């Protein structure tokens, strides 16, 4: 079902495009040799180039170019073998040179596609307009002095990829799905860590509303939203605001706005009246960036399997559901873990254990998959022990918990704690006879048609064997004795 908002004058749909700023993973900055490491002493990771000193000149970082190409390939986008750098001129305290070096007319990456999955299982394609390289700005601190703001240029000049989507997004849910998918792709490619809290991924959200079938109306840009949840909230709040204006007979002004999650509102940052005039022109300090198709082909060879392909392969190779597969491929580390567990085993039981008890244990202990005390090999060994009848599923849960605590191999725990499954029919028969003998009344009722009581007998036998009896054998024996 398509997402719409009801107004007084009828039904409105929303049109959203996203501009994502993703920080490139590189050791040094886009145009200087200063470090990009997060959290340094203020103004320590700054070269005189970043600080815009007289006579300083930019020199492009090869790895940043490669990362942009990798990302372009991951977005199935056109790679422009010749691109240019332009200056975007404006004055602000976080911009030392008075211009940002960006790519305006000739970006390195052209149109591409991101496929998103929605909660109802449907998929949609969101168009990518372009991806370009540009410099990040510095950071201002406003709360340290009553009269002054402080300037730290450590971030100034760090490489960003600005990834611009087509206005193809039609709901907050789609925006969320798009951002999650984009982040997933960037992480798989290792071109951006996607950490929105640390600001390495930020979104500018362009929102407009219209009645069905109408052309586009005026859009507003909500700057620098730093979480997926906020993006989704901001879209709904901004769309509602615009609908109210239109319905009251007003005009929405094209302007830049800020989202305030505490107040649950967007507000104008600056209006068209004092809009910027960026005076873009080709940076005369930088010549055209020309790359070879053969180099692009080489990079293509090194691309990892991306989430969409991996999901399809998991469904096919391991016979698991689309839902399970997308849970597994959400993070490359999870997918890799699962694949190690599932390889040569039953894929379905592997996914049940990984996404079930294993995830639950990680959650409970607050650990990431990388920090898991239980390795994929060790979880796989446990699955083998279930399959060969050494333990049953119920005992396995207990064993897994112990594995999380001690890091021991499953077989060691089983042996130490004597958890091997009882498959000796004589012992199980003796236990069954004992239970039947002690519960003559229940036997009577069972035979009288109270079928549910069968479970009671199974439970009692399991209890008598401390849970170690093979449940299938217990069932067999009880059937013979009670029904036979």
């Amino acid at each position, binding site marked *: 079902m398509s997402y719409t908002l009801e107004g007084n004058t009828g039904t409105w749909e929303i049109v959203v495009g996203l501009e994502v700023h993703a920080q490139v993973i590189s050791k040094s900055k886009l145009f200087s*040799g*200063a470090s990009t490491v997060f959290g340094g002493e203020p103004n320590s990771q*700054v070269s*005189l180039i970043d600080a815009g000193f007289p006579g300083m000149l930019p020199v492009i970082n090869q*790895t940043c170019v490669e990362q942009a190409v990798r990302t372009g390939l991951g977005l199935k986008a056109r790679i422009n073998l010749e691109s240019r750098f332009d200056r975007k001129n404006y004055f602000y305290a976080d911009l030392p040179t008075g211009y940002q070096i960006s790519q305006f007319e000739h970006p390195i990456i052209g149109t591409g596609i991101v496929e998103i999955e929605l909660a109802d299982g449907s998929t949609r394609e969101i168009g990518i307009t372009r991806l370009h390289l540009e410099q990040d700005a510095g950071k201002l601190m406003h709360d*340290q*002095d009553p009269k*002054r703001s402080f*300037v730290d240029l450590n971030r100034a000049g760090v490489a960003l990829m600005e990834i611009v989507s087509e206005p193809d997004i039609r709901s907050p849910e789609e925006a969320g799905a798009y951002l999650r998918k984009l982040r997933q792709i960037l992480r798989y490619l290792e071109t951006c860590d996607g950490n929105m809290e640390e600001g390495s991924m930020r979104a500018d959200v362009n929102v407009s509303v219209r009645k069905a079938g109408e052309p586009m109306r005026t859009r507003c840009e909500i700057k620098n939203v730093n979480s997926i949840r906020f993006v989704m909230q901001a879209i709904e709040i901004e769309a509602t605001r615009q609908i109210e204006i239109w319905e009251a007979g007003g005009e929405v002004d094209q302007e830049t706005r800020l989202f305030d999650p505490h107040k649950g509102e967007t507000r104008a*940052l600056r209006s068209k009246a004092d809009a910027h005039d960026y005076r873009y022109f080709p940076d005369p300090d930088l010549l055209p960036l020309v790359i070879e198709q053969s180099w692009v082909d080489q990079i293509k060879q090194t691309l990892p399997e991306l989430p969409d392909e991996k999901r399809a392969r998991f469904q096919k190779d391991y016979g698991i559901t689309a839902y399970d597969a997308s849970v597994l491929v959400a993070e490359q580390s999870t997918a890799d873990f699962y694949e190690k567990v599932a390889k040569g085993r039953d894929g379905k039981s592997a996914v049940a254990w990984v996404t079930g008890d294993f995830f639950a244990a990680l959650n409970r202990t607050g650990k990431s998959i990388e920090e898991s005390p239980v390795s994929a090999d060790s979880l796989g060994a446990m699955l083998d022990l279930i399959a060969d009848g050494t333990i049953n599923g119920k005992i396995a849960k207990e064993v897994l918990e112990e594995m999380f605590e001690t890091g021991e191999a499953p077989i060691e725990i089983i042996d130490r704690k004597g958890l091997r499954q009882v498959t000796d029919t004589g012992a199980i028969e003796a236990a069954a006879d004992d239970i039947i003998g002690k519960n003559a009344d229940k036997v009577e009722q069972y035979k009288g048609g109270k079928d549910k009581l069968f479970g009671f007998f199974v439970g009692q036998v399991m209890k008598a064997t401390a849970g170690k009896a093979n449940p299938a054998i217990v069932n067999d024996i009880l059937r013979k004795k009670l029904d036979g």
Partner: protein
Amino acid sequence: MSLDLATTRRIAKLARIGLDDQEIEAVRAQLGGILGWIEILDEVDVEGVPPMVGTSVTTTLKPREDVVTDGNCQDKVLSNAPDREGPFFTVPKVVE
């Protein structure tokens, strides 16, 4: 081509060069004169002519390796600051 006062003011604002009314008028007149003189370019037919990129035989960028070779020079970066506070540059308070 003559330049109007409002445009001159807008340009001065964009360039962040504070000019008083008298200076604005003087600049308006001078820029107008220069722009009039530049109109000679209207004579040139540039149909199909590409704009110049770079000037010499060096026509494409030579990238550098991604190695940390710079920065870590806080003292140099801050040494000329007209008003600094500890490791920071300062500006009059910015309200966002």
